[in-house]
């Protein structure tokens, strides 16, 4: 068994409005001198520390947890799962 850090990023699916990201873009970033930025999306990240036999198992276990416990709402959100060696 090895220890892995698993990062779960929860963000809105395409087409679901993200008023916080739009406000950060329009009322902060674009009001400065950073005119090259075209989009900002907010997301929530959960960082799991988990002991599993390999990276792949760590990934699938965390995916299973996210699905079973509705860590994200599949109607409006999606998750991206990234696994790192601890």
């Amino acid at each position, binding site marked *: 068994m090895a220890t892995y850090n698993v990062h779960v990023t929860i963000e809105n699916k395409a087409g679901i409005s993200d*008023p*916080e990201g739009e*406000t950060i873009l329009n009322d902060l970033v674009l009001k400065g001198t950073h005119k090259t930025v075209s989009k900002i999306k907010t997301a929530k990240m959960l960082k799991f520390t988990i002991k599993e036999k390999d990276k792949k198992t760590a990934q699938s276990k965390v995916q299973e947890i996210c699905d079973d416990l*509705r*860590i994200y*709402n599949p*109607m409006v959100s999606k998750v991206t799962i990234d696994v790192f060696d601890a």
Partner: protein
Amino acid sequence: MKVGVVVFPGSNCDRDMYHVLTDVFNLDAQYYWHEKSLPKNIDAIILPGGFSYGDRLRAGVIAAHSPIIKDVQKMAKKGIPVLGVCNGFQILVESGLLPGVLLKNESLNFMCEWTNLIVENNKTPFTNQFKLREKIPIPIANGEGRYYVDDETLKELKKKNQIVFRYDEVVNGSSNRIAGVCNEDGNVVGMMPHPERAVESEINPIDNKPSSLIFESLLSKMGVSN
């Protein structure tokens, strides 16, 4: 008639609801802590407003995993009237008892104000005393109150008459201005506004009668006269 008021850690409208049920409508109400089970002889269940688990992760999602929710699901299936108000509505949605999801208000603000609802379905246990399209002046108090469903689900909701309340005007960016929905059978109703804060003339500057009809509908459904 026995009404169960389910209490979660962070519920804060449970006592307002209990007061209205007992002192205003003379009902036999009981609090039920979320870790307990519900008795079999209960006639209606209310999930009150508040901030269960401090809205952590997402409003209502952690409470939706509480042991008592299994009982609420069983009883809902049997046709027992269930009402979720505000956080109670969020919990019903997150536990799969009602369709859709409640997102942060478009303004990102916590909105605490009076609004007007339009009754779109007067066949539920909580709306049977209303005329269709009747207006209800009622307060909202939420940060995550923007009801969202995709276009396909919205069509289904319309077809199956599951839209119970709509806002009279755009309030928070909800799909189709939806403020409350029911399940397909109509016995489970969720709404973001707070009827328990609007049924007494002392605290309702506009008109307390329409909100009272939500509770009178339940009495009528149960064959109880107030």
